[in-house]
């Protein structure tokens, strides 16, 4: 069953002539991990904002077609309603921590306070979330004292606590250092294993290659292609045509094939690369 379904979906921001999203047709299955890639300005961020209903309820503009998320028509539901079904994570750890709480725990609980969840239940869920993101010793610290990676984990937990079935992440590591990036991806991996539907917009192909089921390419406001992750991410021609640089492992294998040192298919992950290097060294 599709948990997210775009049907001829188009979106034009108020004051713009051309649509930022054009005729999107896409279904995402429950529990699936969908990667979204594309060059800057291809409409990826806007795409992410549709599912929580920021489009059309927060940003003014015109909708065409239909988007159904977890059985709700986005156009006819409020953002608050959708927020218990879709969690949306943004780039900047600084601006997405609301500051509504003076401690990590309170920041996590903020969404539940807004939903009117009873205190007992709140306590239970906060405890669970703090454990999930491994920040037990920071429970009572101000979220603004944390590192970027830790802040981003708090942000993820603060929407997960509302128990959405879908998690949409819009370049969650774009402003993080390598350590923070790997911390966040470790958490995403953990969540994927738990079976939550994940839609991840990122430029970090290396990470995407490891756990995405399918990958969608956006270019010039259109959905160019959706297919199995490996198929898309090793299609170097397709990637380059859409302004995306393939994974370093893919590039390495491409180079070795070109130089005649390796005969086989293109690599994608670290595991592939290891196998390839073993073969090359044996020769």
């Amino acid at each position: 069953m599709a948990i997210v379904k775009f049907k001829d979906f188009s979106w034009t921001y108020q004051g713009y002539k051309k649509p930022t999203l054009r005729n999107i047709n896409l279904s995402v299955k429950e529990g699936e991990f969908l990667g979204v890639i594309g060059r800057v300005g291809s409409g990826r961020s806007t795409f992410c904002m549709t599912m929580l209903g920021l489009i059309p309820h927060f940003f003014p503009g015109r909708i065409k077609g239909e988007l159904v998320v977890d059985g709700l028509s986005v156009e006819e539901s409020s953002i608050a309603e959708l927020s218990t079904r879709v969690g949306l994570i943004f780039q900047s750890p600084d601006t997405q921590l609301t500051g509504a709480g003076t401690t990590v725990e309170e920041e996590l609980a903020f969404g539940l306070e807004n939903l009117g969840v009873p205190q007992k239940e709140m306590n239970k869920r906060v405890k669970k979330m703090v454990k999930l993101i491994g920040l037990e010793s920071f429970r009572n610290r101000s979220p603004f004292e944390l590192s970027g990676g830790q802040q981003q984990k708090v942000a993820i937990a603060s929407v997960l606590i509302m128990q959405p079935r879908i998690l949409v992440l819009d370049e969650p590591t774009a402003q993080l250092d390598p350590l923070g990036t790997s911390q966040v991806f470790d958490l995403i991996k953990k969540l994927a294993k738990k079976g939550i539907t994940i839609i991840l917009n990122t430029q970090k192909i290396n990470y995407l290659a490891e756990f995405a089921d399918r990958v969608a390419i956006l270019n010039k406001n259109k959905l160019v292609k959706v297919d199995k992750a490996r198929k898309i991410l090793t299609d170097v021609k397709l990637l380059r045509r859409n302004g995306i640089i393939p994974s370093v492992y893919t590039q390495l294998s491409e180079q070795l094939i070109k130089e005649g040192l390796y005969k086989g298919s293109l690599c994608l992950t670290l595991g592939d690369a290891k196998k390839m290097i073993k073969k090359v060294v044996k020769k």
Partner: protein
Amino acid sequence: MVKKKTKKKTKAKKGIIERIKSEFTTVAIVMIPIAIGINQAGRLIHQALGLPIWLDTIGTIFTAMLCGPWVAGVGGFLTNVVTALIYGRATSVFFGTVQLGIGMLAGYFTYKGWFKKWWQVFLGGVGIAVTAAAISSVIVVFVRGGVSGAGIDLVFGFFLAMGQNFWTSIFASRFLVEILDKAVIAVFVPWLSIKRLPDRYARMFKYASKIR
């Protein structure tokens, strides 16, 4: 007939409350802490400058030009509530009414569409200076016997020594120190910034279109 009339009246009243409520969009609410932050930054820059340009209402006026009188009024008043909470200076709350007045007046001017040309902005700034001087005169007498513990007190003392009436002296001294800040910097810097704001951001604020 009479019944109908009263009904209409209550309806109109409800309309006002609904209208005020509708000004508090999420972006507008978020602007309040940011406005207070800008006021604080302005205050610090003022201290570094060492000129009678207070800069501590620029955030309030900026918010007035983006989100209207009610949001700016709340933001202005809360600036002082927060100062009171942070520095523990309870008298600051009384002076919140000055910020409230400035925010609401600047918002009202924006609402009326009186902030389109530069000379209108200048006149508006003068109006804001007069209002700020009037409210702060009353408050400063009420709370601190007319003094601020700063250079302005010398101006006040000078007017008194020249034989001016008490209220004239306090108002004149306050107006003198407000006019440069309010009629020039505090209105023009936010105004020019909003004029230059990219469309996609300006669209998120109801009042920005009344300025651009």
